[in-house]
């Protein structure tokens, strides 16, 4: 049993509960014991960065310092934005002693800088291994055509995130292949979905996410899998609006890769949170052999 700290982040406790639930379920099955960081705080996301640099580094570092207090050396965080912020902050304090001092003053406690930050994908592909996952899978994806969408934060900047190719990432695609699906080559894997403009300037999201959905459809995808709560909500929640604007039916279910993995591990559809999506994943479930 691999024991690590767990930083769900705000989204996974609110809009992306199904990501949280499906990761907790699948990780247990994969032999990972997640210990949620007690009294964790927001990573600061994009807002802290535009407010104050010191704040944007201190917020993630507080969470990392808590991990050290737990006596653990690794933390897993599924949200791509959290993952990115934690990684960036950790690297910045490692490279800049003055900043480290300033951060420690803000926190009122020392931070040793020894925590490794991992994304679930990295854990599955690198630590556990796809061969192991393939053996565990009780159901196969039956050639389901899947477009893997990574978004911008998970693989960039490559020097910081450093676990997959920044232009043509492969980890989710390889997972899909291992589980018996068809990983589609397409050009929008790392395009921006519009992110937090979802609320402030919806037009931008309509355009950017529209491009992505269109691209997946052109590649003949039956669904898109994602690894970021914001990507999921933009592609899923705004799909109706995009359909209206383009005047064409898309009907592309947007799943977390953890949900897909959960299905092949024969888990409960409802517990995985598959009922929470706007675009119904019914046709996928059917293909994998679940009855609705």
């Amino acid at each position, binding site marked *: 049993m691999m024991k690590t700290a767990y930083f769900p982040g705000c989204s996974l406790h609110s809009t992306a509960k199904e990501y949280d639930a499906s990761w907790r379920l699948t990780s247990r099955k994969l032999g990972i014991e997640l210990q949620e960081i007690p009294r964790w705080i927001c990573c600061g996301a994009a807002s802290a960065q535009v407010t104050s640099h010191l704040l944007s580094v201190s917020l993630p570092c507080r969470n990392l310092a808590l991990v050290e207090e737990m006596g653990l050396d690794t933390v897993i965080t599924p949200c791509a934005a959290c993952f990115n912020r934690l990684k960036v902050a950790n690297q910045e304090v490692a490279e800049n002693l003055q900043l480290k001092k300033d951060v420690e003053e803000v926190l009122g406690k020392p931070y040793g800088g020894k925590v490794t930050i991992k994304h679930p994908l990295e854990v599955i592909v690198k630590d556990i291994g796809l061969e192991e996952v393939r053996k565990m899978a009780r159901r196969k994806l039956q050639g389901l055509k899947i477009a893997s969408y990574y978004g911008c934060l998970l693989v960039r900047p490559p020097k910081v995130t450093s676990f997959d190719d920044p*232009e043509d990432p492969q980890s989710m695609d390889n997972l899909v292949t291992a589980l018996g699906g068809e990983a589609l080559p397409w050009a929008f894997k790392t*395009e921006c979905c519009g992110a937090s403009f979802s609320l402030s300037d919806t037009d931008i999201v309509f355009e950017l996410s529209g491009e992505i959905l269109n691209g997946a459809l052109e590649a003949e995808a039956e669904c898109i899998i994602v690894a970021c709560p914001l990507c999921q909500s933009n592609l899923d929640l705004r799909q109706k609006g995009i359909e209206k604007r383009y005047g064409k039916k898309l009907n592309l279910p947007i799943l977390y890769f953890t949900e897909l993995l959960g299905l092949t591990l024969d888990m409960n559809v409802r517990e995985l949170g598959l009922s929470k999506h706007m675009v119904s994943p019914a046709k996928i479930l059917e293909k994998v052999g679940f009855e609705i």
Partner: protein
Amino acid sequence: MARIGVFVCHCGTNIAATVDVKKVAQAAKSFPGVRFTTDYRYMCSDPGQDLVRRMTKEHSLTGIVVASCSPSLHEKTFRKCTKDAGLNPYFCEMANIREQCSWVHDDREEATSKAIDIVRLTAAKVRKNKPLQTAFIPVEKRVLIIGGGISGIQAAIDIAFAGFKTVIVEREPSIGGRMAMFDKTFPTLDCAACILTPKMVEVSQNDRIKLYTYSEVETVSGYVGNFEVKIRRKARLINEDKCNGCGTCWQRCPVRVPSEFDMNLGKRKAIYVPFPQAVPNVPVIDREHCVYLSKKKCGICKKACPFEAIDYEQEDEIIEEKFGTIIVATGFTMFDHSIYGEYGYGKYKNVTTGLHFERMLNSAGPTGGKVIRPSDGKEAQKVVFIQCVGSRDEARGVPYCSRLCCMYTAKQALLLKEHNPGAEAYVFYIDIRAAGKNYEEFVERVQDEYGVTYLRGRVSKIFERNGRLRVKGCDTLSGAQIEIDADLVVLATALIARPDAPGLAHMLHIPYDQNHLFTEAHPKLAPVETVTTGVFLTGACQSPKDVPDTVATASAASVKACGLLSHDKLPIEPQIARVNVDICSGCLACKDVCPFGAIEKEEIVDRITQEKRWVAKITPSLCNGCGACNTTCRPGAIDLDGFTEEQIFAEVDSLVAGKGDEK
């Protein structure tokens, strides 16, 4: 007894403003061995030099310290001055109290104190100086030119015209290099072949120029005036003396493979000349693809050859020749853009490079001058050019600007319009660098008269959509996001050093920079020389250059080479290492560290025991005077003239003496 003179220069106010020069001259009077000191406003001026000469004679000085600027500026001046005064020039040393003292300190007292120390140190060294004599070596009056592109061709023609013999060693089956691949040259739009071919022919017909094509330099030993070079003549499998280039063989050959010369856009045979104007017009057999060589079947070319010139058994030949100087003209290669994910990691057929495009434009090229989409051969109507691919990209490519891409991209866009007036051309650029005669005007014309759209910005992504390439980028001048559905994308990839450049550099003992480009002796004042005397650089092996610059450096290197060859004997720097064989124990650690192969094992008869033993022997003409051997020698049997142990010791000692009684 040493009689040293110290001449302190004011350098106007350059030194005198921060250093109390009078005090320095006064202080120097008490230094060991110093008999005369003075100061003067400009020591390098005629009256200043005269002062040095007069005082040297008047006070019978045996050593001179000039306390002024860096030795890199006036060491030569004052050594000559010393010589004129009747002393060995190496009895003069410079005390650098300007660049390394008055210019870098503000506090007058501190600077003066440091200047006194510098003069003390230099005077201490001069006391231990010894007369050094310049030696002479004979000169072999032939030039080796490595590389037969436009650079090597021009150098060979210039040197031959000056009356000296040259040998061109070219790796490929024909001379001509990259320029032979070009369609037209900017900004005049001369046809590249039309201006290059006559020069190639001249090379082949000139009695003073010998051509070794399909050959490579294997080893280089020796030194200026006396380089010994081994050249591998790779087996063409054709007897060059018998072949007259009739072409029967390659017309009959049944094997068709992609042509390297045409950037794999066209085909050639397994026996081939790379292009019709090749010099020499002698084919070569491609061992990898020849059916006879792999399966012992076929042999059609041999049967077809009317001159029995084909020889499947021919073997590589190693020839040894001697040269006085070497000109390196090995050119460049193109950056491989397939590391760029945003351009599709090299997986899209219709994402090509400038060199591909040149071949397409060429009416004798694989597409007959039609610009096509390599994926389906259809004529390209919309072409996007992207500049700075690999250039100015420290993270993934090279940090420097490749200099020609702005110009050839403009030229290619123009030619596209000329070949197909209905075509659309877009150029993504960072900056337009058109610094050359009529260059800026040319780029203006391409935009204004030919309607090529220039967009200042980078391309963020290229992907295939509906059989075309969707190019996403930005125009930073208007702030607009740009999307273009193109038929063809042409990347202006960086010009980079050849992968084997470091190997050649080691062979020639010339340095190269972090980008593996060969380093000139001085970036401004010795741009075609290298630190190895007798080895010169020309063309793009040193840094990216366009044709006129390349030709200019080729002519420059030729003058340098001819200058050397105009002497029957050459002087060599006297600051070289010596072995005291009485002390040498023959461990030859010095041989291991010598970067020039100047040290070898020699058997001598011991002076005392009369027994034979091994010692180290230094070849003076090979020694460049780095002193690595000196440091390695444990008993101190080796010493470096001009920087002897005694001299450096005296310098250290003088510092200690100057430290005073602080404790």
